[in-house]
């Protein structure tokens, strides 16, 4: 698990920096603008990664939670990451813009099929595992 988490953290740092570079390019700014913000982008990415990793391991793979509960928890994490990212990038002014809420809903809706796919994949593995074990128990 630590190995997987470490891999995810390293990848998230690169993703955070990549998003920063992309945002600067799209807004026509120099890549050398506010060098210290690269560090904050990486930190936000690592926090997002940690939250996502926790959801993947503790929630999505847990048979005790219902499908709806898993979706709700995953959506809350996604919204938390979205809010943090927007507040960091745009300041508190963003909360007075309707686009902020529109994009939030869009992000949640777009991520639902992805969550569903991951959950289905995890559940499939564990269902076959329990089927295999129950056959041994009955023998």
């Amino acid at each position, binding site marked *: *698990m630590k*190995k997987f988490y470490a891999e995810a953290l390293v990848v998230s740092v690169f993703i955070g920096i990549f998003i920063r570079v992309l945002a600067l390019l799209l807004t026509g700014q120099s890549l050398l603008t506010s060098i210290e913000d690269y560090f904050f982008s990486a930190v936000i990415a690592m926090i997002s990664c940690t939250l996502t990793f926790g959801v993947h391991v503790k929630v999505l793979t847990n048979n005790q939670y219902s499908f709806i509960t898993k979706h709700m928890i995953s959506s809350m994490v996604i919204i938390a990451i979205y809010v943090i990212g927007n507040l960091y990038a745009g300041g508190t002014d963003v909360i007075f813009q309707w686009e902020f809420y529109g994009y939030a809903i869009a992000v949640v809706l777009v991520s639902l099929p992805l969550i569903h796919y*991951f959950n289905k994949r*995890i559940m499939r*593995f*564990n269902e076959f*595992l329990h089927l*295999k*074990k129950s056959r*041994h128990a009955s023998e």
Partner: protein
Amino acid sequence: MKLGLVCNNNIRDDVLNKFQSLSIEVYRNADLYVVEEGLHTGLLPCIVFRPDRLDDLSDMLQAFAPTTTSSKIVGFKDDAYHVISHEDIFYFEALDAGVLCHTRSDVFLLKEKLYQLEARLPSDRYIKVSRSFIVHIDAVTRIIPWFNRRLLLKFEHSKKEVEVSKNYVGHFKEFLGMR
């Protein structure tokens, strides 16, 4: 090779005793069936035996007996040998120093090599998941899929975990019946 048994109920216990005396396990889904004479129609190829000649059946079954007649594993720890029951085993791990048997709370050193264990362990309960690990599937409680076709196996009431390497994922899925 996995053997199955087809016979009448009145002799079933006697025949099963023959199998058990030779430490041969009987499987529901077998590679080859040992069938009582008269019941073998539709089951060919199979080994047909006569119910009044069970001694001949025993002689024939000798060829299928495993090289070790014990279903237990013997491990070394704290200057003593311990007999480890299959129910307690989580997985086997091959290191330079030898093969370790991991249970919930202990780790034992074994004399056998991993390939020797793989040959004598029940193939429907133990699965090789990488070059260095053989896992007891009944002890696995959760499978966590990861990127790059890897899986992580978690065990009951334990922090121990084993990774299924990507080269073994296909075989593992087949073992679970997913393919």
